[in-house]
């Protein structure tokens, strides 16, 4: 999960927060596949930094 949130941060977003976990496939015909592959639904939110914040980021 952290790896995924790092992708969101890497795309330029700040304040990346994990939200609710959702058992998307519960009760569906595909529930067994989802359990086998440990599939989850997850919510997340993030914010595009302001211009000042972006200019504060050091560049290499």
């Amino acid at each position, binding site marked *: 999960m952290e790896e995924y949130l790092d992708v969101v941060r890497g795309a330029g977003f700040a304040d990346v927060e994990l939200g609710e976990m959702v058992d998307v496939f519960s009760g569906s015909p595909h529930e067994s596949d989802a359990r086998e592959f440990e599939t989850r639904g997850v919510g997340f939110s993030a914010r*595009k930094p302001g211009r000042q914040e972006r200019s504060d980021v050091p560049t290499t």
Partner: protein
Amino acid sequence: MSQLPDGLSPDAVQAAVRERYSGVAAEPARDFGFPVGRAFAEAVGYAPELLAALPAEAAEAFAGVACPVPRAELHPGETVVDLGCGAGLDSLLAARAVGETGHVIGVDFAPQMVERARRVANVARMPQVEIRLADGCALPLADESADAVLVNGIFNLNPDKTALLREAGRVLRPGGRLVAAEIILTAPLPEGEGHSLDDWFR
């Protein structure tokens, strides 16, 4: 970030996703390998009374992951992009939140979903909703033109998640919010899985 197994091209995945979701728009009661519909929408957090207040066609073809709109904390007058809007359920909910002075742009790359979402917006009489046919990685929108971007279950279908995220970032104004729901694997796929287009939808 592109995680395609050998032998699967991004174009092939995109074409398969477009075909599958056009099928959902046309015949939502069919089995597509993933949950679809109103009962599913209720199961992942959409309030029944909220769905009852919207055109049935929107929830019938719902194929998202969760209910992201409340988390977006939308305000009247805001501009919202619903990336991968499907049949338009989240676009309608966002439109209620931003009101007649706001603007909701639903974007989907499956033509039949776009047709369905446009019908739904017309039936709901929400002129602040505009539905566009476009690729999520090349949005026909100006830089920094949106206050919020909603994404409900399309990152997991897109071969290039970083490109999709960067495009969402491009259209957001500084300080704008990205609110998303996504399907993830919490463990590595077993050996031999994930190598076919059908696996992409499991």
